[in-house]
């Protein structure tokens, strides 16, 4: 195996973003790092199949996503850890208020269906175009757009319900909210 230093640097440069994506997929930092490691090994073993000039980052994301889907999804169902290790992944200590907001947002994010969360992260945080996200997820561009829209709508619902809870609605209002949520 020959590893060109510029290829190595490009791969290393993609690692922080790969980790963030992996954590959003698995909800667990340790597992995410294992996933990134497997992705790097797989990528280097298949580096000849990478076409120079195309998007290395998108190629790595595709590998990581496929690994996650084949090996990790079932396990993730078994031990769902939505705020535990994800919260531990935060090294910075933002102000108390924004920390609470952060926490609420992460919880809301974790309630999204995986397909929607993944599409939203790729487009809204990783900086991929709808077309690139569609390539990574091996689906139509329209499917990505619709998943992103549904993810945003759902998050808006979850977050506005949570902010209403902050104002302390009485039990009857709460019951209505919970009821409307389950319909």
């Amino acid at each position: 195996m020959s590893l060109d230093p510029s290829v190595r640097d490009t791969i290393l440069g993609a690692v922080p973003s790969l980790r963030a994506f992996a954590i959003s997929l698995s909800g667990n930092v340790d597992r995410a790092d294992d996933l990134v490691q497997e992705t790097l090994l797989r990528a280097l073993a298949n580096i000849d199949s990478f076409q120079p000039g195309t998007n290395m980052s998108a190629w790595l994301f595709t590998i990581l996503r496929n690994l996650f889907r084949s090996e990790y999804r079932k396990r993730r169902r078994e031990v769902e850890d939505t705020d535990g290790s994800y919260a531990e992944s935060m090294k910075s200590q933002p102000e108390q208020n924004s920390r609470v907001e952060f926490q609420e947002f992460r919880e809301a994010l974790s309630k999204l269906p995986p397909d929607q969360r993944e599409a939203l992260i790729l487009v809204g945080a990783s900086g991929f175009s709808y077309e690139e996200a569609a390539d990574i997820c091996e689906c139509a561009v329209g499917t990505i757009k619709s998943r992103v829209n549904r993810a945003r709508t759902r998050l808006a619902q979850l977050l506005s319900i949570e902010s209403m809870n902050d104002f302390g609605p009485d039990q009857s209002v709460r019951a209505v909210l919970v009821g409307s949520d389950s319909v």
Partner: protein
Amino acid sequence: MDVTTAGEKEASLGREIQTKIGQQLRAVYDDVVNQGVPDRFAELLKQLEQSGAKGRAHES
């Protein structure tokens, strides 16, 4: 028209929430990105690179 006004209000509230969602999403994501490359990955690539160099040396 009342309906339009109500609709516009809803749309602008929607935009506000969307902007906030976008910001928070990036904040959560960037929090991990800003941790940089953990040593284990830099080490891993270094090792692979060295083993690759040895491989090439044997070939030549």
